[in-house]
């Protein structure tokens, strides 16, 4: 039997990779994909704890995370498309119209 800690370690590694992607890439699409990786790592922790405690709450909240991720992706991609149309690039560092 695989202990719970192994699932938690995999989840932590995936979360770290996703956080790195948000920190080091300069492309809105890749940053959104990295956020998806982080949400999935959290899902894996939820489901692992759910199986460990024999409680369905974790699995149900992982479904809620999927719903939140879907709406976040819809809005994020709409913003990315509008930004790309107005500027022709996807670098979030160029998002400074409100700053100046």
């Amino acid at each position, binding site marked *: *039997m*695989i202990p*719970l*800690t*192994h*699932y*938690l370690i*995999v989840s*932590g*590694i*995936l979360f*770290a*990779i*996703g*956080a*790195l992607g948000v*920190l*080091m*890439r300069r*492309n809105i*699409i*890749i940053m959104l*994909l990295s956020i*998806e*990786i982080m949400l999935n790592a959290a*899902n*894996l922790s939820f*489901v*692992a704890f*759910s*199986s*460990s*405690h*024999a409680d*369905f*709450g974790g*699995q*149900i909240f*992982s*479904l*809620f995370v*999927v*719903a*939140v*991720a*879907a*709406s976040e*992706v*819809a*809005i994020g*991609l*709409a*913003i*990315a*498309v*509008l930004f*790309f149309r107005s500027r022709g690039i*996807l*670098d979030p*560092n160029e998002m400074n119209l409100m700053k100046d």
Partner: protein
Amino acid sequence: MEIPLFYILALTAAASAIVVVTNRKPAYSVLALALMMVSLSGFFILLKAYFVAMIQILIYAGAILVLFLFVIMLLGIGSSDASGQRKVSVFIKMRRAVNIALLIAFASQLVLMISAAQHAFPQKNFSGTVETIGTALFNQYLLPFELVSGILLIGIFGVVNLTQRELSKKA
């Protein structure tokens, strides 16, 4: 049988996540993320969360990633990261970020390990089928379920508002 399967899935998930983050072309990143979703649903099957595994494939790989692919193909993005002159300075920042992120992850997981070590795992007579998940969802978790529909509604309003403004500006 379970243990080699677990390590194969873990390696696939970590490797494809690294490919997502480091690949130059966003379309390949999306395909690697689809591979990661499939291996995560393998984890869920190992954890006896069959319904969540099915949802993972249907919603994530089937709907969300296809939306990403649509946008990437629609915009025609090849590789639009920052220029190479910036990348040299980014490399040093990247190494620091690696250290910090891994440190945070492992420190938090150590705490979790100590607190979770005493539980028997996985429990007997426990499997997340459609029936058990549905019973819990519509009895115990009915209020959060309804609130999630509010979140989805707000998402729809946001997207329609964003795109509608663009259309009315053109007309």
